[in-house]
């Protein structure tokens, strides 16, 4: 739902409602809201730059609008990654930067934990090619329509292990230094 | 024909003894060269070079040789057996054949051959077959590319080398190396033929596969070229052949251009002084080769070929024409010198403007510089 600045008729006191609904006036939210008119977008204030939540269905459409619009011109994809929030799914994060306008925005898409499928962004920026391959093999996300969906950092035949997921365990230390000197495993402070 | 060495009359026995002397001298000199190169290159790079093995590192190349002898002898499984085995010998032997005509000191060459220069050039171009066999035989893509590059480079730089030696032989009016050296008692040939000296240096570097022409063995591209698959004693054959070729090329350079043991006053002061003369002149060529190796980057294969065919060869043909004209119509030899110096100027200009541009101005954008996107 697009917050058009007017506070919804709630029963909280005027002051608490005011600072609850941040109108983002000093950020670039107004222009983004105008550019992404047709998309259901929810802003959030980040520590450094504005975060924009976009629904999964039309993420590529929104990204293309952000890139091609002459008002914002986000022509530089800084980085593309994912954050695994275990229960409530994985969100894919795009950091965009506009060289002419010198402004930044972070676009986030949340994918449900059971079916992690998302449309590829390589059609918008070529930079997304390797970044998506790496995110796919690390989090198990399938980017539909990616030109060459091989693994990037993992060996070719290991497509079922996703190391950066929270569920993936850390490796145990196979041989402790102390053991060579005769102490049993777990004797010292090895928690 | 000088009489036999040590008073031996039988020609065959005499030749055999001289060849043995050469082989003995060669292994000592090559080991010294390897040690000297490492020391001089280290000095260029503000390093110390080998100092630990033996006094001041003198036994370093002895240690290297012994270690290489003791290494396991590997041959890749699907390498072509005969070409792989024979390649080192085909690279090593022609270099030693070349020593027959090399004039060390007045009477000390193995045989005075009437067409000495032609013999030397034809023998030294045999080792290319060895390189290609090594490249093909060791069934390794790097070796294959290295071998092909070695062939292309050797052929394209053989021609300027031959023409250079021919034009010097025209001035000295003989192919017999001993007569060429004796003819230079008064003035060395470098005075008459400055352009030929420059072209000989460049083509010599290319023949020896030394930087800037070490494309077949360029470490950063083809990781050692045709010698990638060789190890132990076989590889040391290639290594020794390379340094032996450097030694023989520097001796020929000293003999043909700097007057060998004749100039200055070589005849009068006897063999001791001649030996000093030859070693100093050969030493300058070797130092030049080490110096270039430490400071000049590597050419690309197409630049190398176009440089030889489009610049060196035409210059040498013109030089031979001028030599012919001056020598036949009896002009004074100083005209040759002037023509040579003009040729060197033309070569420098061709190389200069073909490559370097004015110092590139990199526009330094100040803070609010507009964005060229």
């Amino acid at each position, binding site marked *: 739902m697009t917050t058009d600045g007017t506070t919804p008729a709630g029963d909280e006191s005027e002051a608490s409602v005011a600072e609850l609904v941040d109108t983002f006036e000093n950020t670039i939210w107004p222009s983004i809201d105008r550019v992404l008119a047709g998309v259901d977008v929810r802003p959030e204030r980040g520590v450094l730059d504005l975060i924009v939540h976009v629904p999964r269905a039309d993420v590529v459409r929104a990204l293309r609008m952000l890139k091609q619009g002459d008002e914002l011109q986000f022509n530089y994809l800084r980085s593309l990654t994912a954050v695994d929030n275990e229960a409530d799914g994985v969100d894919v994060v795009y950091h965009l930067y506009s060289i002419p306008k010198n402004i930044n925005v972070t676009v986030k898409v949340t994918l449900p934990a059971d079916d992690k499928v998302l449309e590829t962004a390589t059609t918008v920026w070529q930079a997304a090619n390797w970044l998506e391959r790496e995110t796919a093999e690390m989090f198990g996300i399938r980017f539909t329509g990616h030109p060459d969906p091989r693994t990037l950092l993992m060996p070719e035949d290991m497509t079922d292990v996703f190391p950066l997921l929270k569920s993936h365990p850390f490796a145990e230390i196979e041989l402790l230094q102390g053991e060579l000197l005769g102490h049993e495993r777990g004797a010292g402070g090895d928690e | 024909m000088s009489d036999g060495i040590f008073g031996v009359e039988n020609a065959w026995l005499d030749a055999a003894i001289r060849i043995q002397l050469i082989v003995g001298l060669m292994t000592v000199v090559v080991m010294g060269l390897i040690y000297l190169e490492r020391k001089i290159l280290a000095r260029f790079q503000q390093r110390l070079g080998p100092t630990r093995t033996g006094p001041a590192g003198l036994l370093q190349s002895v240690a290297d040789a012994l270690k290489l002898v003791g290494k396991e002898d590997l041959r890749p499984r699907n390498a072509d057996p005969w070409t792989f085995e024979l390649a080192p010998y085909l690279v090593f032997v022609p270099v030693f054949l070349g020593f027959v005509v090399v004039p060390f000191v007045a009477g000390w060459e193995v045989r005075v051959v009437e067409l000495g220069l032609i013999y030397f050039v034809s023998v030294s171009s045999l080792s290319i077959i060895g390189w290609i066999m090594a490249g093909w035989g060791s069934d390794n893509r790097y070796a294959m590319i290295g071998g092909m590059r070695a062939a292309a480079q050797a052929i394209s730089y053989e021609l300027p080398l031959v023409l250079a030696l021919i034009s010097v032989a025209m001035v000295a009016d003989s192919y017999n190396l001993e007569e060429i050296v004796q003819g230079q008692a008064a003035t060395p040939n470098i005075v008459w033929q400055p352009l030929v000296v420059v072209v000989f240096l460049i083509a010599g570097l290319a023949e020896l596969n030394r930087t800037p022409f070490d494309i077949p063995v360029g470490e950063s591209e083809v990781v050692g070229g045709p010698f*990638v698959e060789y190890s132990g004693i076989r590889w040391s054959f290639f290594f020794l052949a390379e340094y032996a070729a450097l030694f023989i090329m520097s001796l020929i350079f000293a003999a043909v251009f700097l007057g060998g043991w004749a100039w200055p006053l070589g005849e009068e002061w006897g063999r001791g002084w001649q030996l000093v003369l030859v070693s100093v002149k050969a030493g300058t060529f070797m130092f030049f080769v080490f110096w270039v190796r430490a400071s000049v980057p590597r050419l690309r294969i197409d630049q190398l070929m176009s440089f030889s065919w489009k610049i060196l060869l035409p210059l040498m043909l013109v030089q031979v024409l001028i030599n012919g004209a001056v020598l036949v119509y009896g002009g004074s030899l100083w005209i040759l010198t002037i023509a040579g110096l003009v040729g060197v100027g033309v070569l420098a200009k061709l190389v200069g403007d073909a490559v370097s541009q004015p110092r590139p101005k990199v526009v330094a954008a100040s803070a609010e510089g507009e964005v060229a996107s």
Partner: protein
Amino acid sequence: MAITPGTANATPTETTPPAVAPSVPEPFVPTRIMPTEHPSEISRLTPIAPQPGKALYRQVLPGIMQVPADLLLAASRKSSLWPMTFGLACCAIEMIATYMAHYDLDRFGIVPWPSPRQSDVMIVAGTVTKKMAPAVKLLYEQMPNPKWVISMGACATNGGPYTRYDRVLQGVDKIVPVDVYVPGCPPRPEALIDSFLALQDQIMEERSSEGRGV
């Protein structure tokens, strides 16, 4: 030679009748946790056993001549160790620093050579990941005998700071026999020079018959 825990000198002396049977300290066997191997990886990470060489020259030379021949060959091998230019990670930068003018390994006759065929020492400088392990094994096999391995830095010795990640091999001695371990992350150039000196002493010790005998 890896220290074999407590086998050589554990034999009790029979001369004095022991009041109580001497409790032979049974050697402590560390509980080795099997690494979590992906099925496709197991075949790629099988270790290479060091095979002793044949030392042909010893069959040729008569007995009396073998001792000086061993000494001469070992001395020449010791003073011309050619490592392979093979840097993996941050330790490679310290290895390069050791070749350069400030520390200059060339003084010991140590020249880096690009091809494994002409090199004697493999310096594993950096983290060996499970994707890189087959390449390390291949390079080790390509090197002609007598060959040695220096495991430089904590990563190559036992995984270093990256041990707890399952894509990292916890130590290169799991796939290749290692002769000298260099501690440090990254070890200082002096430590690498010290490891070469230790390797040289080991080569001198190995020269007699029961050594590597290559």
